[in-house]
C-alpha cells in the first residue's frame, strides 16, 4: 500500500472556497467551504448537525429534508452556497425550550418511527405541510410525503402521526383545502 505525504492545510490546489453565512434554527452560523460542498454535508460536518441524514445519491429518498426559508427541500441537492444569507430549520430546531414540537409528539404517540433514519426528513416535510395546510386529508398527507421514503413503518403510522400533530396544532377539524 502506497502512502502519500499528509497534505498541509490551505493547499491552493483545493477549493474554490466560499464563505457561507446562514441562520440555522434561529442562530447565525457560518463556515468556509468549497463551492461544491452540498448543503447536507455543510450541516452534518461543518455545523455538526447530524440529525439530517443521507440515504441515497439521486435525490429520491428525502432523508435529507430540511426547511429553507420555510419550504421543505432536499439538502443533498442544494449547494451550501445557495443557502447563503437564508434561514434554515433542521430537526434539531423543532424542540423549543425543552418542549417537543407537536410533530415530534405525534411520531412518538403514534409509533411513526422504527429505525428513526427517515424520521427527521419526514418530520420536516410534515411541518412544512401543516404550516401550509393545517387540516390535510389522508390523501394530501400521503402526497405531501411522497418524496420521503421509509422502509420500516409502511407509512400507516406516519400518516397517523401527522394527523395527531395537525389536531394538536390546529384543533380537530375535518377536510382540507384541495
Amino acid at each position, binding site marked *: 500500500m*502506497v*502512502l502519500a505525504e499528509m*497534505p498541509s492545510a490551505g493547499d491552493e490546489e483545493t477549493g474554490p472556497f466560499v464563505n457561507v453565512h446562514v441562520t440555522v434554527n434561529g442562530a447565525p452560523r457560518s463556515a468556509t467551504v468549497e463551492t461544491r460542498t452540498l448543503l447536507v454535508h455543510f450541516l452534518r460536518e461543518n455545523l455538526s448537525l447530524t*440529525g439530517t441524514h443521507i440515504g441515497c445519491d*439521486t435525490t429520491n*429518498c428525502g432523508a435529507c429534508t430540511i426547511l429553507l426559508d420555510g419550504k421543505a427541500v432536499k439538502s443533498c441537492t442544494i449547494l451550501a452556497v445557495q443557502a447563503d444569507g437564508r434561514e434554515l430549520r433542521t430537526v434539531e430546531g423543532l424542540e423549543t425550550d425543552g418542549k417537543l414540537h407537536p410533530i415530534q409528539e405525534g411520531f412518538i404517540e403514534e409509533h411513526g418511527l422504527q429505525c*428513526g433514519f427517515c424520521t427527521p426528513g419526514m418530520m420536516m416535510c410534515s411541518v412544512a405541510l401543516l404550516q401550509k395546510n393545517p387540516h390535510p386529508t389522508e390523501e394530501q398527507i400521503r402526497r405531501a410525503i411522497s418524496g420521503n421514503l421509509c*422502509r420500516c413503518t409502511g407509512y*400507516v403510522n406516519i400518516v397517523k402521526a401527522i394527523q395527531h400533530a395537525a389536531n394538536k396544532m390546529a384543533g380537530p377539524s375535518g377536510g382540507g383545502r384541495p
Partner: protein
Amino acid sequence: MTVHGGVGQSIKRKEDARFVRGKGNYVDDVKLPGMLYLDIVRSPYAHARIRSINIEKALKVPGVLAVIRGKDLEAANLAWMPTLMSDKQMVLPVERVMYQSQEVAAVVADSRYAAADGVVAVEVDYEPLPVVVDPMKALEPGAPILRPDRKEQTNRIWHWEVGDREGTDKALKESDVVVKENLYIPRIHVSSIETCGCVASFDAMGKLTVWMTTQAPHAIRTVFALVAGLPEQKIRIISPDIGGGFGGKVPVYPGYVLAVVAALKTGHPVKWIEDRSENIQADSFARDYHISAEIGATRDGKLTALRVKTIADHGYTDAAANPSKFPAGLFHIVTGSYPFEKAHVEVDGVYTNKPPGGIAYRCSFRVTEAAFTIERMVDSLARKLGMDPAEFRMKNFIPPEAFPFKSALGWEYDSGNYQGALRKAMDIVDYDALRKEQAEKRKRGELMGIGISSFTEIVGAGPSHTFDILGLKMFDSCEIRIHPTGKAIARFGTKSQGQGHETTYAQILAEELGISSEDIAIEEGDTDTAPYGLGTYASRSTPTAGAAASIAARKIRDKAQKIAAHLLEVSPDDLEWKDHKFQVKGVPDKAKTMAEIAFAAYTNHPPGMEAGLEAVDYYDPPNLTYPFGSYICVVDIDKETGEVKIRRFVAVDDCGTIINPMIVEGQIHGGLTMGLAPALLEEIHYDENGNMLGGSFMDYLLPTAVETPKWETAKTTTPSPHHPIGAKGVGESATVGAPAAIVNAVVDALAHLGVTHIDIPITPWKVWKILHEKRAA
C-alpha cells in the same frame, strides 16, 4: 398489581426520545479526531482480468493519502476472506473481477470529497472476459468456469435435497390432479434507508474499535479475530443505532475490512460509508430463485404431494448468511400450512457474475420464497379443481389438534390454528360479498381479484443440534443486573435495527421481575459489554433472546425468593410470586417487592449467600417457533393500462403472545410494504453483459406513501408451547405472506382468461400484454 410496561401493553418506545430529536447515533454520525475517509473504486465490468491499476494520478489528488490494491492485501493474506457459508470472497481482487461494481481498490483521504476525487483518478485497465448471468446456462457443459479455485470445476456450488423422492414421485403419478408451475422470484435489494458503513480505529494499545452497521456484532468480532489474526480481546465491535437492517447488514462487506486495514496502516481512524448506488449494486441481494413446483390432489380436493426443484442464483460466491447445514435456508418449510404426506425438495446453488448474497430482505432464510411457492401452487390447484381457494385451504389445513405437527420435510411445527386465522380474515373483508361483487363486475367486463395467502413462518434459529453459522451455535443471551435502588440494566446478544428492543425487552423483564419498564435500561451491540449472541435477523430475537430474558429473570427470582424469605423470616417454600411480588402464601400483606429485595441484596443478604442480584442466560431454543397468518388482498385492474390497484388488504397474524401490540402492528405494516414492493415494483435486472440496469433509487423504485395501501391488521393468539412466555417472532411474517396474496389476487382477476401465473413484479405492461393477447382490453 399490574406492573407498568408489562407484556401486552402498548407503551410508547423509549428509544424514540433521541430519534425524534435527531440525536440518534448512527455510524455516519461518529466523528473522531484525525479521522480519514475511505472510498472505493469499483469495476464497470461483470467479469474481467485486471491488467493494471495505476494510482499515480490518484496519489497526487489533494487530500489523498493512500491507495490500497489487491496485491497489498495479498501480502497480508487478506485478499480473500471466508464468507458466512464457508465459501470465500475477495476483499480486493488480485487478478480478476467477478461482478459489476465489485471493489477493485480503495482510496484513503483526509476528507470525503478528496476520497471521491481520488477514486475518479485511479486508472484501471481491464480485459473483459465472457460473462455468465443465466444460472441455467452456467450449468450447461462448456460454460466458462467462474471459480477455478474450487476443487470441482463446475458452476454448481452445491446440491441439496430433503424429503422422499421416490414416494413423492409415486404419489404425484397416482394423484387425480397435478398442477405444475414455473415460478421465477427475481433478485431484489432491501435498501434500508441507511446504507452500510463503519469507522475503524486503533488506540494506542493496539485495540481495534469498529463502529459498524451490523446486525451481528459478536459474530463479526470472532470472524475478524480468525481472519485477521487479531486477538479477540483486542477487538471491539460497536453496533450503534442502525437505520434498518432486514438482513442487509449481516454480511461482512469488503469495505469493513478495507477500513480496518487503512486504519492500521495510517494510524488514523478511518470512516467508510457507502453510497446508495454502491449499496444496491454490490451489497447482498435477496431471492433470485428459479422454481419449478408440482402439487397433486385427489379429485375431491385433498392434497397429496409436493415436489419442488430450484436453481438458486448466488452470484460469484456463496455469501448467503444461512445456518451452515442449510444452504437453501429454511426453504423446506415449503409444505406450508398443509399436511402433505409426501414431499421432496431439491435446490442447486449456482455461480454467476453477479454480487453475492441471497437472504437480505426480511426473508427468514428463504421462507419468503417457500411461502410464495406453496400459496401460489395451492391457489393454482384449487382453480384447476374448480374449488374456491378459501374453501380449498380450509379443507386441507393442518388442524389445530394435530400440533405439534411433524412435516414431511422434517420440521416440527409448535402450534397453529390456520382455520381460525383465515376465518377471521374472511369475516373482516366480507369474503362472500366480495365474490358476489366480482361475479357482477365480471359480467360487465371489469377486472377485480381476491387473493389469499395462508402462510406458516418458521423463525427463531435455532436449536444447537441443528443450527450454527460458521460453527457458532445459534443460542442467544441476556444478562441482567439489578441495582440497590431497584432499577436494572440488561444486555443482550441481539441487535435492534428499529424493532424496538429497548422497549420490548424491558417489557418482558418488567413482567418477570415486577420492576417498571421505565426503570430497566436495555443495551445491545457493544461486544465489550454485551453477552455473546448471534444477532438479530430472521425474526429470531424474541424466540431466542426474549426467552433468555425470561429465564435469566427467573434465575434472579430464585435468588430473590431466598432473600425475601430472609427478610420476612419465613422459609422460601412459604412464599409465592404473585402480583409481581413475593407474598407469604395465604398472607398477602406479608410481601416484599423486587425493589426491597434488591436493596437487601447489597445491604442485608442472608449469611453465606453472595451479594448482588444478577443473572445471565444463554438460551438454546428447543425448537423454532411457527408464527402464521392469513392475508386477503382485493385488487382492481385498469383494463386499458394494466395498472393494478390494491383496494383493500387485510392481514390476520398470529405470533403467539404479543409483548407490545403497537410495535407488532408496526412490524406488520412495514413487512406488508416490503411484500408489496417485490410483488409490484422492485426488481434487479442484468443484461447479458452483466450490467445492472437501474442500480439507484432513480430506477429501483421503493413504495412511497402513495402506493402503499392503508393496511388493515388483526390478530389471533396461539402461544408457542415451548417458549417461556409463549411468544413467536413476527418481524418478517408480513413480507413472507404478502406477495402471494397480491399475486393470487391479480391471477384471480384474470383467471377467467386462462391465466394461471404471472411472475413478479407484476408491472402494468405484463398485465396489459396478457389482456392485449386475450383481446380483453
